[in-house]
């Protein structure tokens, strides 16, 4: 049975379920406790589970993310919330040098059931230091897994799967998705955590995308359909590993790839995905892959310029038309 709920609430339910199922699970981060989380994700959990299970931390991203690593080494299941992805730069040592490497460099001796959640993306005029997409920074780190839920259903599924996994997992959430609603079936069996999902079927081109750009791509696909262009839209759901087979199956039918990402174009997630799919499907492609991505700017505060800095449905549709003409 499914329920309509916003993305933040799906995450909240997922945390609640995990906290009640396993005493090793604890949540920590800035204002996750008494305050309930900047995006309400931990609302009500402090009252229910107490301060040791839902821990308000000082503003010490490097320190408390590293604390999560230490706790994971001895079998706890920490869920670290970093208030925004921008602050995660201060915690990269714990994520990249520690969490991703300890199980490996110890010769496979230690578990690392660490989850680090971080909201990111361009929201509404938050300025250059609060509007980044840093997925490419972590995609290049062997030993990490990265999930990017785009819907409330995936938020529910993927957070739960991440907490149950013994591997270190980064969950990239999007600030503009927290209050978007969708139906969530809490009884339904989850697909594998890193499998992509086809959101719209089409024969003319394949749009590969993730996170909030799924919605932008679906809007573009609706416009294109009016013009007779049928776009298939795939939500990657994961940036490491990538579901290459899922994308390839689609490209074998459509023969055209359009990669859509909010991240900056240069050396962004889309560069790797376009390159990886080109290597795999070169002889099936009827045209060079196209990429629609964020501009090479720090995000401007000015609203008009900010809107221009990331892909809009019209940009996606335009690239799709161009691609289908070649």
């Amino acid at each position, binding site marked *: 049975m499914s329920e309509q709920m916003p993305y933040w609430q799906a995450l909240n339910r997922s945390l609640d379920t995990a906290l009640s199922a396993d005493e090793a699970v604890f949540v920590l981060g800035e204002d996750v406790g008494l305050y309930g989380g900047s995006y309400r994700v931990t609302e009500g959990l402090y009252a229910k589970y107490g301060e040791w299970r839902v821990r308000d931390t000082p503003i010490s991203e490097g320190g408390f993310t590293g604390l999560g690593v230490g706790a994971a080494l001895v079998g706890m299941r920490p869920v670290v919330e970093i208030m925004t992805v921008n602050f995660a730069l201060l915690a990269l040592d714990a994520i990249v040098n520690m969490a991703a490497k300890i199980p490996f460099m110890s*010769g496979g001796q230690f578990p690392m059931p660490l989850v680090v959640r971080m909201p990111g993306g361009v929201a509404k005029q938050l300025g250059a230091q609060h509007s980044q997409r840093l997925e490419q920074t972590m995609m290049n780190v062997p030993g990490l897994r990265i999930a990017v839920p785009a819907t409330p259903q995936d938020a529910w599924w993927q957070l739960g799967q991440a907490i149950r996994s013994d591997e270190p997992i980064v969950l990239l959430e999007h600030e503009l998705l927290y209050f978007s609603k969708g139906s969530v079936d809490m009884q339904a069996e989850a697909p594998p955590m890193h499998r992509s999902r086809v959101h719209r079927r089409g024969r003319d081109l394949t749009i590969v995308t993730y996170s909030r750009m799924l919605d932008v791509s679906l809007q573009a696909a609706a416009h294109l359909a009016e013009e007779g262009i049928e776009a298939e839209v795939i939500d990657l759901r994961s940036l490491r590993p990538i579901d290459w087979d899922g994308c390839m199956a689609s490209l074998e039918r459509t023969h055209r790839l359009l990669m859509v990402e909010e991240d900056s174009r240069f050396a962004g997630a889309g560069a790797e995905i376009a390159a990886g799919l080109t290597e795999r499907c070169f002889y099936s492609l009827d045209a060079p892959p196209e990429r629609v991505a964020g501009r090479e700017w720090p995000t401007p505060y000015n609203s008009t310029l900010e809107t221009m800095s990331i892909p809009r449905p019209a940009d996606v549709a335009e690239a799709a038309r161009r691609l289908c003409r070649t």
Partner: protein
Amino acid sequence: MDRDRQRAMLRDMLLARAFEERAAEEYTKGTIAGFLHLYPGEEAVAVGVLHACEPSDYIVSTYREHVHAMVRGIPPRSVMAELFGRRDGCSRGMGGSMHLFDRERRFMGGYTIVGETYPVAIGIGYAIAMRQLPEAVICFFGDGAVNQGTFHESLNMAALWRLPVLFVCENNHYQIGTEAHRHSAVTEVYKRACGYHIPARRVDGMAVLAVHAATRVALEQIRSTGMPYLLECETYRFRGHSVADPGSYRPKVEVRSYKEQDPVTLAIEETLPHYPLPEEIAAAGPDVIAGLAGRMSELGHLSEAELKHLQEEVAEVVEDAAAFAAASPEPTEADLEAYMNCNRRDEVLIR
């Protein structure tokens, strides 16, 4: 302290010195590569601290950790094999000199990014406090590591949430080549703890019994109050920062003066029979006569012959460790893949 414990500590110090000198030799032969940070001069810290802990305590260490690992009980064979990058190393050849791990012995790793040991230690401390166990975490770091943000972040959280962590500063006065007065506005590390209401103490890190006694006090206090504690051990490394460093920035007279306080020599002297002259006893005053007498009977049990035997025994252990390491196979790509995916269990990621 009982005779066996003292003798065990002496043996560990002798082993430490012999092992590290052998490692340096192997490095020049090319059997060990990469960065190699040796411990001679600082033995009293690892031995004094780790002999005062329980097997249930956790150890988090730095990149200068061969001796911590061995005193903790990791066999010299598997430490040497790790230095050689072999499959029988304690990290299966994946870690190397700077990343020794042993889960069973609660040796939670050597870390190379200066300042990483604190958050790992408080994380383990958090788990202990949450589960209300009588365990503690020993967190090693150097004087150069106290200017990283994680030092302050972690001391703050440790005090705020009362985490059972013993922060042990191995203050050898140099951050690679930069002397403490050139890297720290406050060079007495223990004083920094008061900013976080953490009890702290400085001890002579060249004197193993003093380090041991101070650690016992610290751990008792941690276990009874739940508060963390900081112990600063003033010590000295006789060699450069790593084998690639000749240490030429240090005045020769300084190196020589510390060598006169060589903890290994001092420990040997402590255990050799030394009967005070009547004048010495008289000068000590009546109160300490009983103490001195007790000390004599404690210390009078190690003869020159026994000392020689100990030295020969550790030389054999080191020889055996090097032979074992040389004979150990190289890890394979399949081993590597298995370590990479050691936590995958039966999880299906995509299909």
